[in-house]
């Protein structure tokens, strides 16, 4: 049994380029010249070539289909494991004809690095450029460019140099780093495993030694600490135990960790990690297919992304992505499509985004091979990670009924606008005569904001009211800004969409700032589900005065309390977008306090908050909760 699992050191390389530029021939040549093909297979290909009266063709080791051999074209992709000089490679052949772009893309999606083949007689052709674009979309960052068929131009150095410069520019334009340009003859095996006398002007390494060198130089690659992500594939029930089965896409997970499910927003704790036949273990790592058992029983289904409660993925209904269209059937903006990210699948609509300033009619047609930005509007929320490419949770496919029609990545900038409104530059702040410090002196205490965040039913309002009661009766200036109360007036125009929730929090934080500047201890009780919005509130209010208090309470307890009857209404369909049920909750990463109202009494919670205020010098240390009886909250 492994204690620490790490992904194996296999370099996955795809060979791409225009049709007939020699991709399969190169791969066949590499295997042949390194002695990786069994003698009887070489004999089989030799015989086939004789039957067809063609010269010995190394491409036939990859192009095994009859149609491929007869027409000298690769129809589909294949891959070969290749071990050389103690290094493991996965060599992926990709067809170069536009008609088979979906096959090329299928092969390339597995790769980490690309070899771009260009025939020096034909030069840069349509699929050369397109394949570079596709590699870029698939998240590949490095390419080696191989100029082939030098034997056909008499090994002309100047032709090579010109083409090499153009190709390096082309790769650069697609955001691909060109590691080297190598001149070869794949058919004759020149400059592949060893230098070619015919190209003595080339003083770099031949192709295979260069690939090995690149791999050796990247051997010390360390993954660093990535956030934990696991995709939930299924929930099994065996022998009365429930197993949450899936694969760790990044980071690691240990027993005892509190885990967060996106998009449902549910929370539980890992009680054990199970594999067969080894049984329980303490930890699991990136790449492993495992099953989790949870200590709190929650209902979740396939499609969730599991993370820690500290670093959660993004959850949206709308996102923008760059995709390549892969279907013979053209795009139709009126069709309903299916969006897949992780193990989640959501019905969606797709719109083609036209570049600003293009001054063109909206694009409504995409054909096979077209590459474009699209806006995807999903029927339900979906979790993803636009910045965590290694977990593949920024990669998506779009399907029509039974077919994958497009593949791409979530763009770095979201379709959702979360920019804080900025005042007109002509508006000037009018400075008053009374300063906050003077008010605080008169009040006899400093002001502060206590920001209570958590699920509905977690006890935010109860704690806010008890704090207000206690502080008021102790002679403090205190006010409660309750999210629900403000929604009856100031925020009555706002709903519960992510955008409206953001605006709700923006307004509450500015109101809290007004009270803070007046020297009040300002208690905010609002679900405030998004980390990003709370961070914006922290900026508005000021880090020193902002005290984030995470009202943690298991969803199942909140549901059983259901003080406003909202959870019940979700089950009957009268309410949608309830945080924790159909809308996500992103827990704070580093709250000033974390209070579990399923385990603490209100008095204990008040004591904890007062201790925090004492520590921060807001209230005086000699007044303790025990000295004055706060009004006890109703029995929960």
């Amino acid at each position, binding site marked *: 049994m*492994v204690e620490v*699992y*790490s*992904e*194996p050191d*296999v370099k996955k390389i795809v060979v791409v380029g225009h049709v007939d530029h020699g991709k399969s021939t190169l791969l066949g040549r590499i295997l042949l010249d390194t002695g990786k093909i*069994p*003698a*009887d*297979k070489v004999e089989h290909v030799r*015989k*086939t070539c004789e*039957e067809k009266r063609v010269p010995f063709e190394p491409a036939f080791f*990859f192009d*095994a*289909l*009859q*149609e491929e051999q007869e027409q000298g074209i690769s*129809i*589909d992709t*294949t*891959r*070969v*494991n290749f071990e050389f000089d103690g290094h*493991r490679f996965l060599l992926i052949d990709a067809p170069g004809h536009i008609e088979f772009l*979906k*096959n090329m*893309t*299928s092969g390339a*999606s*597995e790769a980490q690095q690309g070899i771009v083949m260009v025939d020096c007689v034909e030069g840069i052709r349509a699929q050369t450029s397109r394949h570079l674009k596709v590699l870029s979309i698939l998240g590949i960052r490095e390419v080696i460019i191989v100029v082939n068929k030098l034997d056909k131009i008499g090994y002309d150095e100047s032709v090579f140099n010109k083409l090499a410069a153009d190709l390096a520019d082309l790769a650069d334009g697609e955001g691909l780093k060109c590691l080297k340009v190598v001149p070869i003859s794949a058919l004759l095996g020149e400059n592949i495993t060893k230098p070619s006398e015919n190209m003595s002007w080339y003083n770099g390494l031949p192709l295979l030694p260069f690939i090995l060198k690149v791999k050796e130089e990247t051997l010390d690659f360390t993954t660093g600490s990535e956030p934990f992500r696991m995709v939930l*594939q*299924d929930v*099994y029930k*065996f022998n009365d135990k429930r*197993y949450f*089965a*899936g*694969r760790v896409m990044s980071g690691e997970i240990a027993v005892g960790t509190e885990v967060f499910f996106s998009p449902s927003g549910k929370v539980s704790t890992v009680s054990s990690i*199970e*594999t*067969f*036949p080894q049984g329980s273990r303490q930890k699991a790592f990136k*790449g*492993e*297919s495992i*099953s989790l058992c949870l200590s709190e029983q929650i209902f979740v289904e*396939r499609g969730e992304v599991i993370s820690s409660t500290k670093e959660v993925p993004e959850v949206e209904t709308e996102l923008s992505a760059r995709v390549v269209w*892969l279907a013979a059937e053209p795009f139709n903006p009126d069709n309903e499509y*299916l969006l*897949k990210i992780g*193990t989640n699948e959501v019905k969606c609509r797709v719109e083609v985004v036209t570049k600003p300033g293009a001054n063109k009619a909206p694009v409504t047609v995409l054909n096979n091979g077209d590459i474009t930005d699209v806006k995807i509007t999903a029927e339900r929320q979906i979790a993803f990670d636009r910045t965590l490419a290694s977990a*593949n949770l920024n*990669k998506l*496919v779009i*399907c029509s009924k*039974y*077919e*994958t029609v497009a*593949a791409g990545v979530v763009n770095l900038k979201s379709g959702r606008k979360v920019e804080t409104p900025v005042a007109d530059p002509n508006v000037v702040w009018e400075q008053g005569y009374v300063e906050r410090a003077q008010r605080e002196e008169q009040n006899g205490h400093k002001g502060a904001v206590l920001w209570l965040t958590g699920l509905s039913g977690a006890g935010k309002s109860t704690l806010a009211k008890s704090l207000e009661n206690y502080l008021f009766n102790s002679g403090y200036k205190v006010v409660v800004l309750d999210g629900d109360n403000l929604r009856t007036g100031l925020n009555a125009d706002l709903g519960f969409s992510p955008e409206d929730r953001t605006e709700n929090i923006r307004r509450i934080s500015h109101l809290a700032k007004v009270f803070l500047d007046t020297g009040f201890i300002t208690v905010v009780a609002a679900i405030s589900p998004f980390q990003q919005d709370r961070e914006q509130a922290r900026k508005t209010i000021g880090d020193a005065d902002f005290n984030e208090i995470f009202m943690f309470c298991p969803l199942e307890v909140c549901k059983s309390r259901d003080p406003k009857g909202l959870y019940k209404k979700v089950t009957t369909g009268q309410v949608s977008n309830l945080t924790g049920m159909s809308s996500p909750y992103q827990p704070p990463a580093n709250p000033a306090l974390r209070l579990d109202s399923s385990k603490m009494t209100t008095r204990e919670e008040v004591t904890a908050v007062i201790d925090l205020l004492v520590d921060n010098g807001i209230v005086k240390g000699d007044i303790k909760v025990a000295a004055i009886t706060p009004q006890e909250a109703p029995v929960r």
Partner: protein
Amino acid sequence: MSSYLDWLENESVFIIREAFNKTKNLALLWSMGKDSTVLLHLVRKAFLGQVPMQLVHIDTSYKIPEMITWRDEYAKKHNLKLIVGQNKQALADGMGPDKGRLVCCGALKTQALLDTVKEHKLGGLMLGIRRDEEGSRGKERVVSPRSSNSEWSYKNQPAEMWHYYNLHVPDDVHVRVHPILHWTETDIWDYIQRENLDIMPLYFDNGEGRRYRSLGCAPCTSSIESCAKNLDDIITELRTTETTERAGRAQDREDTYAMQKLRKDGYM
């Protein structure tokens, strides 16, 4: 090296779980050979020791007799739900390799398999094929949808990106799922050794200097010269061999594209 086998295993378990979740009545095609026995072990890995699906064996009646004995003992010992499919009509009509090897494979394997899929309403079949076995298998997808006549449309296969598999298919289509497509013959033996799997004795030399490297029907499968008596011997032999795995399978050599032709019609 252990981490490489773990990686193969983790990939396969992911695929098996995807297929199981998405496919109505998924079954495992078990030939009792090394590959499908590894696959069966991976199914247990995926489901915490359970085998929550039926196994299918296509019995041509020409199998090497030891295979059938071993099959029945193994299935009983492990309490497996085994469907044995057979083209009884073709056998009654006298089908055999003397009618032509490819014709015989088509009737007793492909047709029997297709009939079994229909009879038992199997939405999908998991197969232990690997890319390195032969050229046409090298072109396979992990998930390959097969229309009602079981045909493999190798000239127009679906896009299969990253870990997104095409498991959503019309009702009259069944999927072929290939969870160990990315393994090699050597990987299989390394894994059998590491996991200490129970494997058919025909793979080992019992003192006569011959063993089977690939198992099939008795008339069309020949043993190879080899003194490999245990797993270590086999692994050492594979690292230096100059022949391909299926060299002992006569049907592969009936025609340059024999396998492609058989597999197009739905052969394993």
